[in-house]
């Protein structure tokens, strides 16, 4: 096996690992969003949720999951105006984010 083959195999293994770790990452984001929607958590938690979506948006396509990047980007963009807002999102916004997170989950599962 050449060095190039070794590298390709290593990168393929990392891509598989990324897919494996994606589900629990989405679990954590959904739990965080549900807590925030229920009035628990604070602005730091909201920024953590935003950062989690941002991170997935920034990496999924690199690992061959462009639809996951698009779906995460949609969630991130939705939260952009709320990230440093003085007031938290309302029930309608959380409901919309829940829909976006469901779309993200679906994209991850069908990728």
């Amino acid at each position: 096996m050449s060095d190039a083959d070794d590298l390709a195999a290593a990168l393929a293994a990392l891509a598989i690992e990324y897919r494996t770790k994606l589900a629990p990452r989405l679990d954590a984001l959904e739990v965080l969003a549900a807590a925030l929607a229920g009035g628990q958590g604070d602005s730091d938690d909201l920024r953590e949720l935003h950062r989690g979506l941002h991170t997935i948006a920034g990496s999924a396509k690199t690992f061959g999951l462009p639809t996951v990047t698009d779906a995460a980007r949609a969630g991130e963009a939705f939260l952009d105006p709320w990230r440093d807002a003085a007031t938290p999102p309302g029930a309608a916004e959380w409901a919309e984010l829940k829909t976006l997170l469901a779309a993200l989950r679906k994209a991850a599962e069908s990728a």
Partner: protein
Amino acid sequence: MIEDDESLAAMVGEYLTGFGMTVSTRSTATEGLTLLQQGAQGELSELGKPGKPAGFDGLILDVMLPDIDGFEVLGRIRSHPTANKLPVIMLTAKATREAVLNGLHLGADGYVTKPFDIEALMSAVRTVLGPAEASDWPKGGGSIRND
């Protein structure tokens, strides 16, 4: 490399290592700056180049980090007396005109937009480091340090 997405850092590390580079990864700005500071003080090597921390030829720096903004990290590096010439490639998910100008104003040497094609990042690394540090074909011999 300072990047909080461990999977992405691992992929970049693996790739650059395949080109014979030694890659150190840190997931927070604080950890990364500490490592660079050690290099700037010559703790890692006695072979540091003027304006570069010893042991480092360049830095791949994410913009949105959990503790300190990547632009602020870049500013600190550029104002550091013995690390200010370290080549820095910024990784940003939002390559807005404002963000790019901000990075260039602060002295970024390259910009790569996330999500990136790994070849695009390698191209930026080649451009910034030059052919001496970045060869054209995987050759092995590098290593990933995340100690």
